[in-house]
């Protein structure tokens, strides 16, 4: 697959891919081609390197070894490998949450700080929930206490991670029965690492249950803390209009791209990019201004809160540099290609790393410290401005950039749906009960060169919309859908079924709701809990007519998310299978048995239309179990091919 047309469905990406090839720049797809064929033992999850008696491989054809040297079978090996992925993914999300909690402490620490609490209401709501008395205290003190409670979740040894209290009673009961109620965020991850050491846990289901527990400590723990405290520090998002795709880059301005995940950095870059002195400096270099855009989740964070445009998603990170108009790419942690550094040797862009945890070859390291946040952010922006005169190489900024509406949260979804007069989840639940809405789906996750870029995200979303399923999205999927124009209210006219269209027209929302970054998948958990609490749709998240999907995922974070969503009771279809297919026991448990415990399970389906159909069928089954009528406007099943679901790259 090296024809640019075949690599991506996004026209802007295809254009820049060709431009990159003409310049002799290597991109992820080239490295993917060179890696073929990839090792089947790895893909099937049946190779183990956990000790040096190995490395061991199980022969799936039965001729070679069926056990590792310690005696581990394919089932044990696959389970161990899988939950280590959860450990890594949960660690990434949770460390992010830890950092945000730390920033809140810094903001409320009494010393002058560039960080302040920007959303008192959110803080008060959290304080109330956590039992922090607010009357006699000033806001910073409340903030400090909330931060400390959140911090404690990480080192807690026993009890329950506090936000699991938000889950419906049915979920909590199931978790306790299965012994997966998370005790402490770091503890569950450490226990994974312990259990997967040679000669500890050798029961595949027992191993997976610990993985489930750590995933819950992420979703209802680390990620949720990240989301909530980011809202406190930087403001709970509200509806915002912006644009997405490489067309947001401006050849006449200083272009800075933030890439990575933590808003503690990107928020400061946003502020610094508006600094009057720096704007003067930019103009003095001949630029018309400073143009900030983002890639991946940090992009989603500053989009949601400031309307900063989205340059692209995961697989576009090298393409952004290949345009030759980006002065600096500022990165912190997660999903950042080490290849970027090598790429900056050929283009004028500076790669600026900022986290002591994340250093990259050929990057200029300007270490970000919260105590001097704004000054360092200014220095970073200044470095970018000073790079403006160094442009070389033919510029190629595609004209594609799509308008979008984002900024949906658990708090404002209900006011979106109920209007100003009835802000509650009742209208959403009623819409589902009446059948005007068939159900709700979450389509989330990364890109992966094994799948045509953005094809799965857009195709599944469109198929769901056509069947009156309201779609919630986060992360790189949200960016894909944004580029395809699906985050506009007008998209309902073209892509939504009649029922969904009616709702979108009535309340002015797009048919696809962007809820934020990947840690903001925790917002989806809160929405689901609220839907159950509102009533009429069963007693459990597992009863709701909802389904989840990650069509093009690649990261270990996605594995953690998949698990916390499934274990919270949601049927989740993955476009890329979990690397466990070499173990029939593990595969069967994840796609069947796990449902008995938690009400949710996985399905692996690479074809997006088939995957959407699985989700729709599941939603219909849940409706039937609730004795709800069929959808108000039944859509006859007419499966389309993925090709028919091409994104209409809106060019305005």
């Amino acid at each position, binding site marked *: 697959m090296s024809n640019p047309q075949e690599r991506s469905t996004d026209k802007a990406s295809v254009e820049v891919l060709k431009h990159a090839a003409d310049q002799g720049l290597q991109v992820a797809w080239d490295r993917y081609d060179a890696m073929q*064929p990839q*090792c*089947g033992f790895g893909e*099937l999850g049946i190779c183990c390197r956990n000790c040096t008696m190995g490395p061991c491989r199980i*022969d*799936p054809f039965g*001729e*070679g070894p069926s056990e590792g040297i310690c005696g581990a079978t394919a089932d044990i090996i696959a389970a161990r490998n899988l939950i280590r992925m959860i450990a890594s993914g949960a660690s990434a999300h949770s460390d992010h949450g830890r950092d945000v909690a730390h920033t809140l402490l810094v903001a409320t620490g009494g010393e002058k700080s560039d960080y302040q609490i920007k959303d008192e209401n959110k803080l008060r709501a959290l304080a109330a929930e956590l039992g922090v008395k607010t009357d006699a205290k000033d806001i910073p003190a409340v903030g400090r206490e909330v931060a400390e409670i959140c911090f404690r979740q990480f080192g807690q040894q026993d009890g329950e991670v506090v936000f699991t209290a938000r889950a419906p009673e049915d979920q909590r009961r199931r978790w306790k029965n299965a012994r997966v109620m998370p005790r402490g965020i770091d503890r569950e991850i450490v226990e994974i690492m312990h259990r997967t050491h040679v000669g500890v846990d050798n029961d595949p289901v027992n191993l997976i249950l610990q993985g489930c527990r750590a995933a819950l400590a992420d979703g209802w723990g680390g990620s949720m803390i990240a989301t909530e405290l980011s809202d406190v520090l930087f403001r709970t998002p509200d509806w915002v209009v912006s644009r997405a795709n490489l067309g947001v880059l401006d050849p006449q301005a200083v272009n800075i791209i933030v890439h990575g995940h933590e808003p503690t950095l990107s928020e400061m870059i946003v502020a610094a990019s508006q600094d009057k002195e720096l704007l003067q400096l930019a103009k003095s270099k001949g630029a018309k201004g400073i143009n900030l855009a983002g890639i991946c989740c940090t992009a989603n964070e500053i989009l949601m809160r400031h309307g900063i445009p989205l340059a692209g998603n995961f697989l576009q990170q090298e393409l952004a540099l290949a345009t030759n108009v980006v002065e600096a790419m500022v990165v912190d942690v997660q999903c950042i290609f080490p290849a970027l550094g090598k790429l900056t040797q050929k283009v004028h862009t500076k790669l600026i790393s900022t986290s002591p945890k994340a250093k990259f070859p050929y990057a200029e390291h300007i270490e970000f410290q919260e105590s001097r946040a704004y000054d360092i952010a200014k220095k970073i922006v200044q470095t970018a401005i000073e790079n403006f005169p160094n442009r070389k190489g033919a510029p190629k900024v595609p004209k594609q950039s799509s308008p979008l509406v984002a900024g949906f949260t658990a708090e404002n979804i209900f006011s979106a749906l109920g209007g100003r007069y009835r802000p509650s989840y009742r209208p959403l639940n009623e819409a589902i009960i009446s059948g005007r809405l068939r159900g709700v789906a979450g389509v989330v996750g990364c890109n992966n060169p094994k799948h045509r870029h953005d094809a799965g995200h857009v195709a599944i979303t469109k198929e769901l919309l056509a069947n009156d399923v309201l779609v919630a999205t986060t992360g790189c999927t949200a960016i894909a859908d944004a580029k395809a124009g699906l985050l506009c209210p007008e998209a309902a006219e073209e892509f939504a079924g009649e029922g969904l269209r009616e709702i979108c027209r009535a309340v002015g929302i797009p048919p696809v709701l962007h809820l934020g970054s990947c840690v903001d998948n925790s917002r989806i958990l809160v929405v689901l809990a609220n839907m159950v609490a509102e009533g009429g749709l069963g007693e459990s998240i597992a009863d709701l007519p909802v389904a989840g999907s990650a069509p093009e995922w690649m990261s270990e974070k996605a594995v953690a998310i998949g698990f916390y969503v499934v274990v919270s009771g949601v049927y989740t279809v993955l476009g890329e299978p979990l690397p466990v297919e070499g173990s029939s026991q593990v595969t069967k448990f994840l796609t069947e048995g796990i449902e008995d415990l938690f009400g949710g399970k996985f399905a692996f389906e690479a074809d997006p239309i088939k995957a959407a159909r699985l989700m729709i069928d599941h939603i219909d089954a849940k409706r039937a179990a609730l004795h709800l009528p069929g959808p108000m406007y039944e859509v006859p099943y007419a499966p389309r091919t993925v090709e028919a679901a091409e994104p209409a790259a809106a060019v305005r």
Partner: protein
Amino acid sequence: MGKSKIYFDSEKCLGCHSCEFACAVAHSVSKDPHKAHLEDELPIRRRNVELVEGACLTVGCRHCDPAPCVDACMAGAMQKNNETGVVSCNLDQCVACWMCVMVCPFDAVQPGKVHALKCDMCDQREGGPACVEACITGGLFEATPQQFVETVQARKKTRNPEPEK
């Protein structure tokens, strides 16, 4: 003919590249997997694992009869051993003219830094071909042409059994 060759079974190949690794080690100086990659002249494998229409396979030298590379060799370096059937390159004779590279239908001869490089069936190695030894699924196996034909027939029969009379 009773001479054995190396055959592949794409249904058993998982693309793990262990055969490539073992071949390189077998052609290193140290013959030691821990040391081979540290040698000044990195050993070069004679076999490649590739993707064809979704299937993994590794073809390797077919030790042809007649062998185009033997015909093409103007230094008399490429020779076929009539007893074992093995076609190998005598490195002392090879003058790096690449006629063999030009004519090999199976892309099994590589122009090395100094000499032509090709599979020699590990005829100096105790234990025989390293790649076959390294393959744990049976994706590579040694057989005589007769045995190979029988294996293929047998598989066809199990896939398409004769209808019951």
